[in-house]
């Protein structure tokens, strides 16, 4: 089992979710983050004071998948999140040791989907 963390542009969430859905990857967790990457932040101005705004809003996706879903999931994210501009984000892949569905107590592969 793998655990995918993806950082994407806020306005790409819907596209990613749609493509994931097409691949039968429907379960995911989403949160709000701020990212600092290669993309330049936008300078803020406050009463005559300029401040380098180095953090930009990003969306973080977390998706646990069984190994055979990994590639299609990563592909869907790559395709949906890509604009070609700096700031598109990253996908991080982890080994997931175990997974438990709280409602049923099931564990392992079967609990993921």
């Amino acid at each position: 089992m793998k655990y995918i963390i993806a950082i994407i542009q806020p306005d790409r969430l819907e596209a990613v979710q749609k493509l994931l859905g097409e691949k039968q990857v429907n379960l995911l967790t989403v949160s709000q983050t701020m990212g600092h990457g290669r993309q330049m932040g936008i300078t803020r101005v406050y009463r005559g004071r300029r401040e380098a705004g180095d953090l930009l809003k990003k969306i973080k996706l977390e998706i646990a998948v069984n190994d055979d879903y990994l590639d299609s999931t990563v592909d869907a994210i790559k395709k949906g999140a890509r604009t070609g501009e700096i700031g598109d984000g990253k996908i991080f892949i982890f080994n997931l040791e175990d997974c438990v569905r709280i409602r049923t107590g099931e564990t392992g592969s079967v609990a993921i989907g």
Partner: protein
Amino acid sequence: MITAKKKIMTMAAALLAALWPAAALAQEEQQISAGDTAFVLTSAAMVLFMTVGLGFFYGGLVRRKNILSVLMQCMFMMCLISVIWVLYGYSLAFGPSVGGFIGSLDWVGLKGVGLAPSDSYGTTVPHFAFMTFQGMFAIITPALIVGAFAERMRFAGFVVFSILWVTFIYAPVCHWVWGSGGFLLGMGALDFAGGTVVHINAGIAAVVTAVVLGKRSGYPERTSSPHHIPFVVLGAGILWFGWFGFNAGSALGANGLAAGAFVATNTAAAAGGLAWAVIEWIRDKKPTSIGVATGVVAGLVAITPAAGFVGPVSAILIGAGSSVIGFIGVAFLKPRFGYDDSLDAFGVHGLGGIWGALATGLFASTAVNPNGADGLFFGNAAQFGIQAVSVAVTIVYALIGTFIICKVVDAVIGLRVSAEEERIGLDLTQHHESGYTVLD
């Protein structure tokens, strides 16, 4: 030296005096009614506060990244028009009429406008009180248009557009309807507090700007996520509160007419809110708070031209009718025709204003206001015709005029932000700010 200094000062004084001569102020307070003045000044303050409320009503409906751009457009309008109004706007709108079409420039810089009452406008209050009360209307009207082009207009383009619009669209239409000698006024058109001047005018301009600017990217899928609905309710609440100044204040005195307009206003707002809730209840099983807030505003819009001419039962019908029409506008017409009137400035203000102006021709009654006229339901079909003409004239003028202004500004300055700026949001790209911090 001393003489030179004195000379400069005298010149400066002359300059200031030229713009605002003492004479005009000399004989104030002869026929001023303190009660009426208290009412008109308080009303003016309340109408100014409406534009703040409008900012929150609209601001809550946009996405988080654009909240400041909307608030800024409203606040900036308060600044911009207040100064324009004093410099030349009031003169254009209410100055001595040039053929019924526009005010002359005789009152530029408020020359001749003083603390004594005017002969033609609000004759029991200082002319200044009437002038500033009207100025508040000139602020909120273009601010209403903001709802149509929200989330995608360049700030520089917005500023120039607003200056031109208030000068070439608002001032003339205002003159026609309310200016002494205005041609629609002469025709007998009834517009108590701004159905044509304010709401149709702004509503038509709204749809024009929405069409000229084009849709927001992602419209309609990813655009309607109101980021802060409590602000929408706050805005609607401030609007309702301020609208008493707008409508009852338009009586220009604290009298029975004002009380009647006050009651009509409150009743229509309430009926509008209820009607929208009922529609939603039938259609989606639950009424929404945005729906009720929208219905309240729709009711207020429609009662605006009628407030001083109709009784409370008519007000219920006018207010509820406005929600029905507004709902059709935003839920059916907009998707059907595909324009992106972001926050439904046309759907609510344009359609509600048209309905209100026509409804005035149906429900007006001399029993309520002997200085008004009877409407069709009270046996005077002609009034409905007059109203229809004034609506048509306003629509045509606002449509063509706004279109020309849009095209000119777009060519010279540019109306729309880049796709990248739109994606990042207007707050950061147009104002170097973001509404809320995320981390702290």
